[in-house]
């Protein structure tokens, strides 16, 4: 009998191959974080000895940690894959950012709208995302093959029944499908698999001395000089790491001395808060994730 990680791996590979076989023009959303790292690793396995038959797409908000971008470029080079980077040109022109416009506007323009632009521009009909059902309540109900209308909207009330592994991939022109091969993985599964398979991850997950300021109880890393400091605010150097990665102004650090994978896993095992708590955008409003997802957020 397969172990639980072997069973999860086989399921994810099956899902990816199904998309490769049935979609006209698939793409893999690559967000550089640990879940993306696992998803990409699984893609390398799924099609071996072929390369994954689709490009990677990174929607760059221009506010990612510098280390993330460096890791992204290294990874793509190491694996010899195609990477598309999309930045919302209107957002860039208007100087949209989390400090000047707030997290809600920034996320909508630079992430959700930017993603839709990129998908439309290239005409992708299937897009892999690394979301997991254990992350958040509305994700728990989403299908593995999740249908999107021509306007990229998700209708949680009208989802296609999904039985066995007979995935319905059929769409009409202009419609698309978001595919979540990690749906049945938990955060612990992800870390165990990274450990077992020795998968490279962004160094930000490991503790190091980093400059941070504390705002509203959240430690924000001063990743570059675009961060406006309030009067009297001085960045302090602290031993911190990140449980989840996104735009640096919107991602809270945690105090930690964990510099190795077992230490990270140990911290996670005894943690009292869930990983998305470090994300500012989830707290904006009740059921905020569900709303964002309906509008096209991943």
């Amino acid at each position: 009998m397969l172990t639980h990680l072997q069973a999860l791996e086989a399921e994810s590979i099956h899902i990816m191959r199904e998309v490769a076989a049935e979609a006209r023009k698939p793409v893999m959303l690559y967000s550089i974080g640990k879940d993306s790292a696992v998803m990409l690793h699984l893609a390398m396995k799924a099609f071996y000895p072929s390369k994954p038959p689709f490009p990677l797409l990174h929607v760059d908000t221009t506010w990612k940690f510098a280390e993330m971008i460096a890791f992204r470029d290294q990874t793509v080079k190491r694996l010899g894959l195609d990477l598309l980077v999309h930045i919302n040109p209107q957002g860039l022109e208007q100087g949209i950012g989390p400090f000047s416009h707030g997290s809600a506007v920034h996320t909508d323009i630079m992430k959700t709208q930017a993603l839709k632009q990129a998908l439309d521009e290239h005409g992708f009909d299937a897009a892999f995302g690394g979301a997991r059902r254990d992350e958040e309540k509305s994700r728990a109900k989403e299908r593995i093959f999740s249908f999107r209308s021509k306007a990229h909207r998700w209708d949680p009330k009208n989802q296609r029944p999904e039985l066995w592994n007979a995935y319905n991939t059929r769409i009409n022109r202009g419609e698309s499908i978001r595919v979540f091969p990690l749906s049945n993985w938990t955060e612990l599964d992800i870390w165990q698999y990274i450990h077992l398979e020795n998968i490279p991850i962004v160094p930000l997950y490991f503790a190091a001395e980093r400059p941070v300021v504390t705002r509203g109880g959240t430690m924000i890393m001063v990743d570059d000089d675009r961060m406006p400091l309030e009067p009297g605010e001085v960045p302090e150097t602290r031993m911190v790491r990140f449980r989840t990665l996104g735009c640096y102004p919107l991602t809270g650090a945690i105090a930690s001395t964990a510099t190795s994978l077992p230490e990270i896993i140990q911290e996670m095992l005894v943690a009292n808060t869930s990983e998305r708590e470090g994300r500012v955008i989830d707290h904006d409003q009740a059921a905020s994730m569900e709303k964002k997802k309906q509008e096209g957020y991943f």
Partner: protein
Amino acid sequence: MRPPADIQPQEVLDYLKAQEAKTLLRFLTCGSVDDGKSTLIGRLLYDSKLLFEDQLAALDVAAGNGQAGVPDLASLVDGLQAEQEQGITIDVAYRFFATETRKFIVADTPGHEQYTRNMATGASTADLAVILIDARKGVLTQTRRHSYIASLLGIRHVILAVNKMDLVGYGQDRFDDIVSDYFAFAQALGFAEITTIPVSALKGDNVISASTQMPWYSGPSLLEQLEAVDVARDVQDAPFRFPVQWVNRPDLDFRGYSGTVTSGSVRPGDEVTILPSFKTSRVERIVTFDGDLDEAFAGQAITLVLADQVDVSRGDVLACSDAPPEITDQFAAHLIWMHDEPLLPERSYLLKMANQTVPAVVTELKHVVNVNTMEQLAAKTLELNEIGFCNLALDRAVTYEPYKQTRELGGFVLIDRITNQTVGAGMIEFGLRRATNLVWQELYIDKARRSVMNKQRPCVLWFTGLSGSGKSTIASLVERRLHALTHRTYILDGDNVRHGLNKDLGFTDVDRVENIRRVAEVSSLMVDAGLIVLVSFISPFRNERRLARDMLGEGEFLEIFVDTPLEVCEARDPKGLYEKARAGDIKNFTGIDSPYEVPEQADITVDTTTLSPEAAAEHVVAVLKDRKLIE
């Protein structure tokens, strides 16, 4: 469950090592609306300490309907905002937790009457069902339904959790009565194992560990049973089956077949039979990213390289040559209808199963199962959430096994060809007209030979449009022109056919589909005989026109949309039908109280408000010449 807070790094490594050996159990929970299903799952997560502080804090905010002092466990599980407002779980949600020995994936499915569909969805990937009963209410109609659906979907292990024992004073008599009621009907369902456990999800009795409130019960707690149950579905010992999912061709030197082993095992050197061609070859390599394997088992996603250059494509099945599965183009199956629009027998749907996608029609609905009483009733259609037993016919043979043997080779979904919605799910019981080798009767004089002799390529000109749009007029003019050019033609007129061939049919949706099917079948025979067939039929539904198109070869079907606005047709009203329909004397009249679905990609569109019938006919003939259908 989480380890203690003072766990050391070396212990973490040991812990991780131990975790690697965990197995996976997928189960589903089902019960009536108020049986406390969501509370039970919340309890499993809460007591196995898998809830984090911020999730608990969010619970307190979300609550409002929970009891004082007790976190509202159900609200953690009920996902979407709209559902929280309605106070019921309405879809399938997946939950995860793990113990020292197992990881669990829980499909939480609703107990509400209307949602058979969701339960079947959750059950399709589950190996065990936890069926909840409210101790105060005992075995209900829903309990029977859930048990029947679980057995239909191939679940062999059941845990009957008699919940809310705290509200019946933890009494053994009540529990025993319910258990004996349950066994009275569940025995017929053929479960391999039924475990009965008295619990209180709200208070935590017998959920994680033994309850002190019920000393009379000495069996396992719910969690203990979930950890202990052995669900090996004998798939490892079954013959080797491998549906090809993706042809792996990185360069000219490598050709492999990627897919997931659905049953049995395979080693290099094994002889395999390729279905449906029944050719054989030998396995040369089992390729994975982590190196070649000596053996692969059910559940593994691998890539096989064969020793011979044989033709293998997606949807083919590689199987051990000693016991290959059968192929068939007709079979009997249980079908669960999952869409608001009812099943129409004879309508063409797409059937997807084991990487094979094939047009399929339900040719005979033998009966509908009353899921409450398991009675078999006669029916003409299946409505949402109904379960029927029927025969299906496919456009070509597929490789299959009865669902009871292999879920992956016997479970299929039906997809609507226009909306692409998943409208049904089926489980194959047995093949009809089974074949271990399918041979067509070869006929010497065929369509191509007749075509040469007739100096025309036979085809169907399908005129669709509203009543009074001018279909028959234009078709008749086209035929006259073709006749003058010495082509062999025939007109099938909707009204005329209804006087003869189809005089037994009315105007319900089911009858309309049958009407079209017969006309399409007759046209197809005439095309085979070498004729140019002009069909003049309102044919208001895209699906039905597509059905007709699919019965003919590539390029043999031309859809001609006679585009005349309703007001114009109604003003013309050559047969006085619109007047009668408006007066209510004719029901289901297209354009009045029944829809006309405009063709999305008609081969020819004639606008009769700008073209005379003669000009329209000339245009049609010109297109036929353009397309080299006539000389």
